[in-house]
């Protein structure tokens, strides 16, 4: 490793050998599929570039903090930026990442589902190559609930009925004061036909936001709520379901293999269904997650970086990431690949939700907006739907001006 870095140090400034070292900043992927993709692509480039993985912290906000501080300081030792889907507007507007144009853009756009493309687009330009996506499903106990509920209201009624019978009845969600809670709220607002922002700086909260707030408040104040709801993140929700305390869980697909290896007894009765709807007649629009890869504006090897990203986000690598790493792909055709069907029996549900996607508000001040939403709606059982919309509106407005405390 040292030898490579030393060699690249010489090669970087001059043109000796012409091999570019590409520093790739990405979250710590535990299965090693990102590292394998980086090694394969370096090899396939025939000596044109060598990708060196730099691991970011595991928490999403810590990842962003490190990237932002490097990019704001114009750090040229970062070439490929592994971005959470909700950072695109912020990074693009600040001029930290380069747009994808022409043949480069066409190559990484081809065959990608509309949801992931939408997350990587800012002001009509593509700023990242969708590497993987993610969407939450409804997980439920087949032994307790014969037919999965279609709507939030049905699910709440089912849970209350189970509570009366003294059976496991919690609905596991993410209600802690953090980004995951914003995902819940945003999914509900989108599913109700509304949106949080109608432009980068226009707050558009209306009746749909009020419905979203009521759904959260009704659940949080009912018997269906886990007593820890206001502290629960994805992993606490997973654990509670695995402990057998819950009848329902809203979570990402990682919970499925986890239940199979941790508690086969629960895994046997673990069913999956589409994310609950707000209106019975309208499919839910679930806020999608995932990673887009961007080229840093301060990279000294942009051409090689574009090529390396296109390689790492290609079909074979997305398949490995999905099968080995459990990260849902962004390429539509991969969902029909038999290799994916085995670990992902619910792959068609995921594909459909990536087509009927919802995304978080697109604004360079997204982290401010997120902070305002988290704080205003915390704790979930403290929400008064009637006043929530007006206080949210004023909080988000002040978040967008960046002149007030949050």
């Amino acid at each position, binding site marked *: 490793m040292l030898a490579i870095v030393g060699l690249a140090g010489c090669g970087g400034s001059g043109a000796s050998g012409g091999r570019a070292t590409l520093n790739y900043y990405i979250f710590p992927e535990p299965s090693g599929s990102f590292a394998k993709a980086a090694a394969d692509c370096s090899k396939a480039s025939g000596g044109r570039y060598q990708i060196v993985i730099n691991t970011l912290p595991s928490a999403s906000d810590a990842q962003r903090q490190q990237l932002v501080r490097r990019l704001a300081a114009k750090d040229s030792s970062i070439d490929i930026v592994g971005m959470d889907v909700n950072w695109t507007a912020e990074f693009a507007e600040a001029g930290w990442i380069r747009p994808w144009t022409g043949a480069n853009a066409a190559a990484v756009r081809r065959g990608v589902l509309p949801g992931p493309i939408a997350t990587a687009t800012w002001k009509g330009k593509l700023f990242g190559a969708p590497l993987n996506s993610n969407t939450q499903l409804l997980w439920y106990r087949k032994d307790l609930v014969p037919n999965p509920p279609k709507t939030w209201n049905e699910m709440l009624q089912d849970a209350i009925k189970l509570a009366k019978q003294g059976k496991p009845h919690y609905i596991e969600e993410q209600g*802690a004061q953090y980004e995951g809670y914003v995902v819940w709220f945003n999914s509900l607002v989108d599913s109700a036909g509304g949106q949080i922002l109608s432009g980068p700086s226009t707050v558009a909260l209306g009746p749909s936001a009020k419905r979203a707030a009521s759904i959260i408040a009704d659940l949080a104040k009912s018997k269906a709520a886990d*007593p820890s709801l206001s502290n629960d993140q994805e992993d606490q929700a997973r654990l509670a379901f695995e402990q057998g305390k819950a009848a329902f869980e809203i979570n990402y697909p990682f919970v499925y293999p986890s239940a199979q290896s941790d508690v086969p007894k629960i895994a046997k009765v673990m069913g999956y269904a589409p994310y609950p709807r707000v209106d019975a007649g309208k499919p839910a629009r679930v806020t999608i997650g995932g990673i887009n890869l961007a080229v840093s504006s301060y990279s000294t090897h942009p051409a090689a970086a574009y090529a390396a990203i296109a390689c790492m986000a290609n079909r074979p690598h997305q398949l490995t990431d999905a099968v080995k790493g459990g990260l849902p792909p962004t390429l539509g055709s991969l969902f029909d690949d038999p290799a994916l069907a085995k670990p992902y029996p619910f792959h068609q549900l995921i594909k459909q939700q990536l087509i009927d996607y919802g995304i978080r508000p697109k604004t360079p001040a997204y982290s401010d907006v997120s902070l305002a939403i988290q704080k205003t709606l915390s704790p979930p059982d403290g929400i008064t739907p009637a006043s929530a919309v007006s206080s949210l509106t004023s909080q988000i407005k002040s978040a967008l001006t960046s*002149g007030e405390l949050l």
Partner: protein
Amino acid sequence: MSTVAAPAGQARKGMTDRTRSERKLGLMLIAPAVVLMIAVTAYPIIYAFVLSLQRSDLRFPNASKFIGLDNYGSVLSSSLWWSDVFHTLVITVATVAIELVLGMLLALAMHRAIFARGAVRAIALIPYGIVTVVAAFSWRYAWEADSGWIPHLLGLKTDPLASTSGSYIAVIISEVWKTTPFMALLLLGGLALVPDELHEAARVDGATTWQRFWKITIPLMKPAILVALLFRTLDAFRVFDTVYIFNAGAHGTETVSILGYNQLLNRLNLGLGSAVSVLIFVLVAIIAAVFIKGFGAAAAPGGKKT
């Protein structure tokens, strides 16, 4: 030094030369330390103050401009700032008060330990030696509703950390557990200053243990108590790690340091965040001044007597 007889004038001249060169040497010797201090403390403080007078956001570098005291206006007129000051004061007053009582008991125990004195002192200091983040994590897991031993022991059906009061109690216990040894160590230093003869004399005069503690030990320890309280109060007022690990300021436990962190590191709003930092600095300076003015005067006579 030898005192060889020499003409007075010469001697004085020689001495001043020596003093001058010694002073020069002294200045040269401390210069690196001064330069280092300026680089690592003065520069960031001044830079934070300069930033606090600007609209400065890492994401909008082109929109940076000088705006005078506007950031201070926004902070001081925000109800969030004042409620966070209140949260911080609650944690500070509660932890320092409990630590003073427990720390004094611990100090007395360490002072009076008859056997294995060194071992007793070392064991008592272990919590303080643990990294705050690690200690906070172990306490948070202890309070966790599903798996923690505290809710299990108390037979709680609900999640104690899902309520404001529960969160405060958990944070305060964690802080007290962690820093009581520090308080005890400072108080132990004060206890060592109390001469045994005074106690013996008082005992001969028929003073009870309680009377001796209040009339002899406490007055003589006043300077040590002042230092211990001052250090811990300043420390407690800047509390960040424990609260951040427990719930990052949810359930109404957000402190001023977390407020500053949110502005600086989440929002990248350097102007507002620096204004918050400077205001925390001012509050800390006020606390220190109050302690030294208020208690310092009271402590002086005790100091003179010894």
